[in-house]
C-alpha cells in the first residue's frame, strides 16, 4: 500500500507542476503584450518600464517563469489588474461560497444518482422506471443556463419561494449567526438543485447498468438462496459492489460540476469562483484568470487522486494481494 501511495501522490504532484507551467506558458506566449491591456497607450516609455517591473513582466521568459514559481510557492498569485489587490484575497473570498455550492450540489447529486439507479434497476420496465428516466434525461439534456433561468422564473419570480440571486440577503449583516446561515441555505436551494438536477442522469444511468450487472452475478443468487431479505441483498451485496466503478466517475465529475457552477453562479449572482472567473475573463484580468484556471486544474487532479484512493480503500482486490497457491480454480491463469 505505502509504495503505491507514494507513487500515486508523486504522480499527482508532477501533474500539478506540469499544470502550473502550462498555465504560465499558455498565457505568456499568447500574442500581444499583456501590458497593453493594463496601461493607457499614451504612457511614456519610462513609466511603461516601471509598470512592467511592478507587474513582474520584465526580464526574459524563463526569469519570469522562475519568479512566478517562486511566488506561487510562497502562496502569492500576483495582483489583480482590475481590482488592485492580491489575487489570493479575491480567491479566498470566492472559495467559501463555491465550496458551499458545489459540495451541496455534489451530495444532492449523489443521493439522486443512487436513488434513481435503484428505482430504475429494481423497477425495470415499469412506469416508475420510465418516469425517472424521462425526467432525468430531460434535465440532463437542458443547458445549465436555461435551466437556471427557468428555475429563477418559476420559483422566484412566479412563486416567490426562493430568492432570485446572491448568496445572502442585503441586510444579512444585521442577522444573528444562526439566522445568517438559514438565510444562506435559503439562497442555496435553487442553484444547488439546478446543478444537481442538471447532471445526475449521466452517472445514474452508469450506476444502473452496473447494478444490473452485479445483480445478475452468482453471488447475488447465492446470497438470496441463503434466505437474506431482498433489501439486504440489494444494499449490502448489490449496491456495495455496483458503487465501486462509480467512484472513479464521480471523481471525474467533481470538476465537471465546477464547470456547471460557472454558469449557474453567473445566473444566480453567486459570489463564487465561477463569477470571479467570468468577470476576470471579460476584463482580461489575466493574473486572476491564471489563478482560477490553475485552481480548476488542481481540482481535477485532486478529484481523481481522491477517487483512486477511495477505490483502493473500497475494493479489497486492489488493496490486498492474491494468495499464491496451486490449488485453484481452473480459470485462474497458470
Amino acid at each position: 500500500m505505502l509504495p503505491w501511495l507514494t507513487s500515486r501522490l508523486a504522480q499527482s504532484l508532477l501533474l500539478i507542476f506540469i499544470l502550473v507551467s502550462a498555465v504560465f506558458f499558455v498565457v505568456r506566449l499568447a500574442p500581444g503584450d499583456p501590458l497593453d491591456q493594463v496601461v493607457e497607450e499614451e504612457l511614456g516609455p519610462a513609466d511603461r518600464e516601471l509598470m512592467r517591473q511592478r507587474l513582474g513582466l520584465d526580464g526574459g521568459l524563463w526569469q519570469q517563469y522562475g519568479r512566478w514559481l517562486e511566488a506561487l510557492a510562497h502562496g502569492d498569485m500576483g495582483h489583480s489588474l482590475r481590482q488592485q489587490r492580491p489575487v489570493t484575497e479575491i480567491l479566498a473570498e470566492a472559495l467559501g461560497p463555491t465550496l458551499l455550492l458545489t459540495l451541496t450540489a455534489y451530495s444532492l447529486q449523489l443521493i439522486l444518482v443512487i436513488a434513481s439507479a435503484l428505482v430504475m434497476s429494481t423497477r425495470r420496465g415499469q412506469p416508475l422506471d420510465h418516469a425517472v428516466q424521462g425526467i432525468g434525461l430531460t434535465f440532463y439534456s437542458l443547458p445549465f443556463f436555461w435551466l437556471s433561468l427557468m428555475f429563477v422564473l418559476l420559483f422566484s419570480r412566479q412563486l416567490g419561494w426562493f430568492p432570485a440571486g446572491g448568496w445572502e440577503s442585503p441586510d444579512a449583516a444585521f442577522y444573528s449567526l444562526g439566522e445568517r446561515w438559514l438565510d444562506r441555505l435559503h439562497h442555496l436551494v435553487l442553484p444547488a438543485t439546478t446543478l444537481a438536477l442538471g447532471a445526475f442522469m449521466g452517472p445514474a444511468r452508469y450506476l444502473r447498468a452496473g447494478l444490473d450487472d452485479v445483480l445478475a452475478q452468482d453471488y447475488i443468487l447465492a446470497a438470496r438462496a441463503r434466505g437474506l431479505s431482498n433489501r439486504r441483498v440489494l444494499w449490502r451485496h448489490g449496491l456495495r459492489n455496483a458503487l465501486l466503478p462509480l467512484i472513479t466517475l464521480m471523481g471525474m465529475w467533481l470538476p465537471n460540476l465546477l464547470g456547471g457552477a460557472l454558469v449557474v453562479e453567473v445566473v444566480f449572482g453567486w459570489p463564487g469562483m465561477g463569477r470571479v472567473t467570468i468577470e476576470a475573463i471579460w476584463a482580461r484580468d489575466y493574473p486572476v484568470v491564471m489563478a482560477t484556471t490553475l485552481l480548476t486544474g488542481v481540482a481535477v487532479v485532486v478529484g481523481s487522486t481522491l477517487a483512486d484512493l477511495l477505490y483502493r480503500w473500497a475494493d479489497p482486490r486492489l488493496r490486498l494481494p492474491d494468495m499464491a497457491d496451486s490449488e485453484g480454480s481452473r480459470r485462474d491463469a497458470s
Partner: protein
Amino acid sequence: MTDTKPGDRLLQVRDLHVDHFDSQQGRRRPLLNGVNLDLEAGQAMALVGPSGCGKSITARALLGLLPTGFDWRGQIAWKGQTLNDPDGALWRQARGKGLGLILQEPQASLNPVMRAGDQVAEALRLHRGLNREEAWSAALSLLAETQLPDPHRAARSFPHQLSGGMRQRVLLAATLACDPDLLIADEPTTALDVSVQKEILALIRRLCRDRNMALLFITHDLNLAPLLTDQVAFMSEGRIKKVLPSAQVPLLPSARKPAAPPAGKSPILRAADVSVSYGGSENSAVSSVELELRPGQAVGLLGESGCGKTSLGRALSGQIALTSGTVTLAGNDLGKARGAQLRTMRRQVQMLFQDPGGSLDPRQRVQSALNEASGTGEDAAARLLVEVGLDPDLGRRYPHQLSGGQRQRVALARCLAPSPSVLIADEPTSALDGEAQNLVLSLLERIMGQRGLALLLISHDLEVLQGICAEVKVMFGGRVVESLPGDVPFLPLHPYSRKLVQALPRTLREDMNLWVQQDFLPSAGPPVTSSGCPHFGNCPLQKPICGKELPPLKMVSKNHWLRCPEAEAEEPPHFIDT
C-alpha cells in the same frame, strides 16, 4: 442436526413448467415441460443432462429464484406446504431454513468485497439471531467443519485471496449456516481441478451423511453423478426422462480410441531447457522443459492450475519471453528472430484458447475476422468454415449469434487462416459440454492429420488428451514429471500422475472404496523450494533425499520417461480399460 427424520417428505414437485418470455423476439420459449420430483429427508439424488436441458432452471425454480422474464406454473411443496404466495415470503423462509444452494463458479458466488467470515456470519446472525461475536465464532466452526486448513485466516480473507477449492468450502459453510435440510449443488466442482473436485465431492458427501441433509446434485458428468447419490434422474428437453438407482447407472465409455504410435518425422518445433519466470521471482513458472512437436502429431500437456502448462504454451508461441533456453521453429531460433522474420514465425505458431467468446471481436462478422487473419486478400472465409465443419453462411453472423461450440470452431478456423505449422490449443474444450467437446476434439484430430499440423494440446483433463496425443507430458510445479504415451488405458508411474488419475470420476466409479477412504484435507501446493522434487511434501513415497535433489527424467521403458526414482519399481495402477 436437522429436525427432519429419514423418510420425511421434503420436496414434492408436480408438473413444473417454466417458460422464458423473450421480449426482443416477443415470443415464449418453454424450458421445463412438466417436471416431477420427490425428495425425502436424507436422500441424495442427481440430476443429469446436457447443457440446456433445464437442470439449472429446475434448481432456480425450486428456490423461487427464477430470473425476471421467466414464469413458472405447477406445484412445488416444501415439507407439505405449497409454496405459491406471490410476495415470496414463504420462499424466503424456506430458503433460509431449509434449502441451500451452491454453484459452479466459487469465485463468482462470493461477494468480492466482503470478508469470507462475514459472509458466513451474515446468514447466522439473520437466521439464528446471534450477535456479532457469537456469529463470528459460529462461522469459524462452520469453516472448520468444511475442512478449511486455517479457518481463522480464511475467515479474515477476501474471496480473491482464496483458492478455488477454499472458496467453494467457504460457500458451503455459508450455506450450512442456514442449517439446510436439502442442499442443491449446481455443478459445484465443474470449475475446479480434478484433485480438488474429489476433495470437495467427498466433503459434500460426508456433510450430507453427518447432518442428515438431502442432496440434489446437478451435473453434466454422467460418471460423477452416481458417486454422491442414491438415485440419478436423467433430464432432457425440460423433462425428467427416467430415474435409475445409482448402482445401475452404467459407466460412460470413453469416446476415445488408442492414439497412433509416434512416427519418425523430424520435429518442426523444438524447445530446449525452456524456463519462464515472472517479475524476477526466483520461483519459475516453468523450469527446464524439453519438448518436440512433429508434423501430424499431437503432444499433450496434462496438469492442474498453476502447474505452468499455460505459461509453457505462451512461451512456445513467442507471446512471453523465455528466462532461459531456446525455442526453435524449423531450425530458426524464435528468441533471436526480429522484425519481418519474427512476424512470419509468429504466424507459423497459432494459439487456440479456452474461451472462444473472449478471443473473437464481438463487433466483427465471422467472415471478415477470418479474411483478416488469412491475410491473403482473397476470400478464404468460406473455405475455412467448411474445413471446420460449419455452414459457410455462418460467415455473415457475429460471434454472439453462434453457440459455444460453433464459436470455438470459428476460433479454430481463424487459427488455421494463416496456414500455421504448429497449433497450441490451451484447454480448447473446457468451456464446452459433452457433445461439443467431442466435436471439437475430433475436428482437431482430423485437421491435424490432413494439414500435417503439429499440435500441442494443453488440458487438465486426461480424457481430452487420451487417444489424440502420441505423447502426454504430466506437469507439476513447473516441471515435466513424467512423459508417456497417451494410450487407453493410461498407465503412469509417477505418484503425482497417479493421484491425478485416481481423482478422475471414471476411476472413482470403478473403485468406490478409493475415495471413500480418502482424507478430505486439501493438499498443500508445490513447495516453495526450488531444489528438490516438486512433489516433495505431498508424496506418499517420498524419502528425505527428495527434498534436496531433483531427480532426473529417466527412461523407464520405450517412450516412457519418469522423474522419480522411488516409483520406478512400482506396479502401474490398476486402471480401467474402455
